[in-house]
């Protein structure tokens, strides 16, 4: 049986059609690629976000250029520090463990200043200050992202909470940070969930 479709005999037209089909295929494959996709769980500051093993909330955001610990200057920044106080509660039957965090602003990803993780045993909640050093001109839309730190991971949940720094109020945040010190506790405080 022969195919009933007859195509133009021009070789150039055939080659162009083939290239177009390959291009469409490439775009389709790129758009549909599930690799690297993440289950984003969004929230707002002050309200707990529910994830698989518990809840996470952003309690407070502080900015400054000096980092202090127990009233001693620990570090200074030519840019600015952003300290995000978060609380993780293990409301389920398993441990809540969020070992990775980033601050994202458009195409800029800021890593944490030092190692910080939120780990809470079932029935407990943990509060921690997660510190980032950021570039002051690029703080609009700063969003905290936290997720479980794993060697082998699949389709993973990631908490995403915007800190409320917008283009309209970014200057106020920058002014607030100038010359100001942030006193942070590098150890987590853990307590039972009431």
């Amino acid at each position, binding site marked *: 049986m*022969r*195919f009933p479709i007859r*195509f133009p005999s021009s*070789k150039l037209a*055939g*080659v162009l*059609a*083939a*290239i*177009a*089909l*390959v291009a*469409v*295929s*490439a775009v*389709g*494959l790129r758009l*549909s*690629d*599930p690799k690297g*996709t*993440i*289950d984003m*769980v969004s929230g707002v500051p002050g309200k707990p976000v529910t994830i*698989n093993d518990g809840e996470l909330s952003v309690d407070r955001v502080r900015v400054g250029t000096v980092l202090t610990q127990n009233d001693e200057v620990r570090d200074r920044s030519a840019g600015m520090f952003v300290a995000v106080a978060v609380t993780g509660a293990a409301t389920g039957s398993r441990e809540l463990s969020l070992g990775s965090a980033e601050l994202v602003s458009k195409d800029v990803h800021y890593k944490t200043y030092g190692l910080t993780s939120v780990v809470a045993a079932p029935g407990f909640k943990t509060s921690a200050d997660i510190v980032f050093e950021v570039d002051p001109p690029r703080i609009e839309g700063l969003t905290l992202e936290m997720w*479980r730190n*794993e*060697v*082998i*991971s*699949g*389709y*993973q*949940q*990631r908490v995403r909470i915007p800190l409320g720094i917008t283009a309209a109020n970014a200057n106020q945040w920058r002014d607030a940070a100038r010359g100001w010190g942030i006193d942070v506790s590098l150890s987590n405080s853990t307590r039972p969930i009431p």
Partner: protein
Amino acid sequence: MPEIVSRAWAFVTDQIWPVIVDVLAQPLLWLAVAAVVFGSRVLSLAELWRQGQPYAARIPGATAFARYRDKRAFRRIGPAPRGVRLAASRVQVAFFGDIDDKYLPALHSLRLVLRAGPIFLGCYVFVYNLALIAQNYLERLLHLIVGGHEGQFWVRWEPVFSLVQDALVEPVRLCLLAVAFRRCLEIFVQRSTVRPGAAARPESRLPVLASAETGT
């Protein structure tokens, strides 16, 4: 200048190379593999049919119907000494064994596929990738239903989800490969028909080729 070169290199490695490998080469190579699996004997048969006569007929004096003078000349040449034949067979196995067994069939298959024409290949690549795109969206749908979980969950359940996807998409892909291979053979036969000096009964070849596929 180095900036331009590095950007061009990044564009090639990030954008062009994945397209060549994933979008273009993968479907074509799978079709070539299908041709190797189903069609290595088909090709050799086709070559014989195109010649229209057995191999011995091309050696003067080798057949029963050769002229007396050719037969005498053929006998006079005689076989080579035993040592030479042994050495020749060893050399052939050592240097050309892999070529005959692996590379030539693969090369013939790839040639069969690539000579099917740009429109056919474009359509085939497009449909093949449609199956992959469907598989990708199926995976996304499963992710949407199941939600994000830790790695331990995926280690346990990923094989099950892969089985679901493969059960739905793989038969389609295999059918596509079979149909595309069949079409390649048809195009091959059509081209042989229009070629001057081709064998007289081209239409009768396809059933023979098909029977060679099934090993009958």
